[in-house]
């Protein structure tokens, strides 16, 4: 690049010269930035194509989906209507919503309580408890499917929401996230409350939790989205269509009509819709959560 020429310039720069160089650099940078933006916009549009195409297909009548065109000659919501009227998708919405909400609530409550004890209390086997929980981060949920299935079978919980909710509550990484966050909250605050005679639960509830809202929201949203999107375990634990979650239902139940692309895409759109909403409403928190913790499903 042109800059290299300047390295030969052995004479010290005057202030005016420095300013001029800075200006050219600035102009160059601005041009460069604009190019970057253009390139990225192209990529971003490319990235949106599959979603747009799915929507486009879903709005066509089934018979016209084989036309190789973006143009929708006879736009229709027929596919959506069929699915909502005849399919199980409303049952799946309910299942996904209840399961994910209860899992997220369960994780937030149990993990924050545990993390509070690990962060603020002194007891003999604290290090052991902490390492014991850390161990859980190393165990991928997926390696437990066989024994978990037999376990939940033996207590007759298969094919109920609880078969998915209960195992997805104890997420070890959530305890770690909370503990780090609590560790970062100055102890002076709760020490003061202690002196005023407040109990642990009171401090946890009234002092620590309100300050830990960012961690709470990160864990809640992530737990919700993970549970919502999980496929493998619901596929096994929920075999009745009426209790299936959306991913399990979409992956196993087929329309009775064979290959009708508009219907299939409409079901994909309906399956995506709640998470698109979650994303639009909470996008900043989701993004912050990932950036802050490196949580990955």
């Amino acid at each position: 690049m042109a800059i290299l020429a300047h390295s030969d310039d052995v004479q010290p720069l005057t202030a005016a010269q420095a300013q001029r160089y800075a200006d050219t650099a600035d102009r160059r940078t601005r041009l460069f930035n604009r190019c970057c933006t253009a390139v990225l916009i192209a990529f971003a549009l490319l990235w949106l194509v599959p979603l747009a195409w799915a929507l486009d297909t879903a709005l066509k009548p089934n018979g016209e989906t084989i036309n190789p065109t973006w143009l929708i000659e006879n736009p229709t919501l027929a596919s959506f209507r069929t699915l909502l009227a005849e399919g199980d998708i409303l049952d799946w919405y309910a299942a996904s919503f209840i399961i994910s909400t209860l899992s997220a609530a369960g994780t937030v409550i149990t993990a924050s309580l545990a993390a509070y004890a690990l962060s603020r209390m002194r007891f003999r086997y604290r290090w052991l408890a902490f390492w014991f929980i850390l161990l859980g981060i190393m165990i991928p949920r997926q390696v437990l499917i066989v024994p978990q299935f037999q376990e939940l079978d033996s207590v007759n919980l298969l094919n109920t929401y609880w078969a998915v909710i209960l195992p997805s509550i104890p997420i070890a990484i959530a305890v770690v996230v909370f503990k780090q966050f609590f560790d970062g909250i100055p102890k002076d605050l709760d020490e003061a409350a202690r002196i005023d005679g407040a109990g642990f639960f009171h401090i946890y509830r009234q002092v620590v939790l309100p300050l830990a809202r960012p961690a709470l929201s990160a864990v809640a949203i992530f737990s919700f989205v993970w549970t919502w999107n999980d496929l493998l375990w619901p596929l096994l634990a929920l075999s009745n269509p009426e209790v299936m979650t959306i991913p399990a239902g979409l992956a196993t139940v087929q329309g009775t009509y064979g290959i009708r692309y508009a219907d299939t895409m409409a079901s994909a759109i309906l399956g995506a819709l709640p998470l698109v909403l979650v994303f639009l409403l909470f996008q900043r928190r989701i993004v912050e959560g990932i950036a802050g913790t490196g949580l990955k499903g």
Partner: protein
Amino acid sequence: MNSPPVPRSALTRRDLLRATVLGAGAMAISGCSSIGAGLLATPPASGTVTYWNLFGGGDGIRMREMEDGYRKANPDIELRTATFMWGNPYYTKLALSTVGGRPPDVAASHLTRMKTLVLGNLLQELRPEDLERHGITAEKFNRKAWEAGLVDGKCYAIPIDTHPFVLFYNTKICEQAGLLDAEGNLAPIEGPDAFENALSRVKQVTGRYGATHGITSPSSAPWRLFQTLYAQLGGEVLADDGARVVLDDTKAKQVLDYLRMLTVEKRLMPGSVDYQGAIALFASGAAGFHLNGEWEISTFQDAKMPFSMTLVPNVFGGPYVVQADSHTLVLPVRPEPDPAALDRSIGFVRSMLDQSLTWAQGGHVPTWQPVATSDAYQKLTPQSQYAAAATAAVYDPPGWYSGSGSNFETVMGSAVGAVEAGDLSPEEAIAQLRSKLAVLAATASPV
């Protein structure tokens, strides 16, 4: 991290409100019975029949018609149905739900998959006295299908059809190729050379291919053609309920060489085409023949193309046989026996049998003799033209890993498909088959 974090980015009341609105919306639009089942494991209201199947495409449409027929005849019984992805995913679901204690009342099963379910204690025995109450007796069925469905002489499954592998042909193309007889039907083709010759004459007409069949996916598809030809040579693959592999390498190689010649060498059939692609090529006139299960009849009827169907030619001589399976209806084991539910379920089965003619429109050969011998069925063409296949049916060999859509079919079909796609030589394919089958055969049966 030393100063308290700014609570600005916390979950606010507004966020919670948003979430609640989302949730309330979801609950409002959804039914409540499923939530009861999910949260409290409430069983479906008494007086319901739940029925699971794996029928898509035209079969799915006709099955719905039959279900509606049942609903109309039994307005006081609520029928709940579910259709799952075909093959292993369906059988996995069926087994897991039965293990989990909440099976459907009635389920469809391939005859060749049913035996494994029986050995796993997942199916109820259907006692003759219970069946007789609904007029279901052995002599009203095609004997071959009925007997293939018995396990140790006991009945666990009611066959509703036999579905053989058949030959579809485009009447217009075959006429141009001079392959039709005076009545406009396909003139009999016998022997390997005659079949090859027929394909090359068709290829001259279409300019692309003689015949198509699904090869790359699903991987069980090529198995059906292989099994038909291999059984025509008298070959068998498994013995002792799958514990022993008795593959005859010479016969298998003869079949694979022949298939390789048709695809890789002479390009009479496309070698790397999937199931849907094979159908599309035939439907668009790029090929004059299509080898597939008879169930695709409605696809080609919908395509409004000139076609007919007949038995797959007897390519390798010997007594005529053709690969087939049967759809059956089974009753999974329930945690607690319930005579009323049993009667409702068998009543549903009987209703399906009575509607065999609707089912037969989808190409399946009825096993229920009152329909199979009726004039109405005889008049149904081209469906009744290959009804003889029901008595020439050869089912997949018994074994816990065998049956329609099973690991066995996948192992066999993958190797055969790889030969047709030119990825493996016949010798390599046989070696792959042998090593994979040896593993399956050596594995202790889980049932």
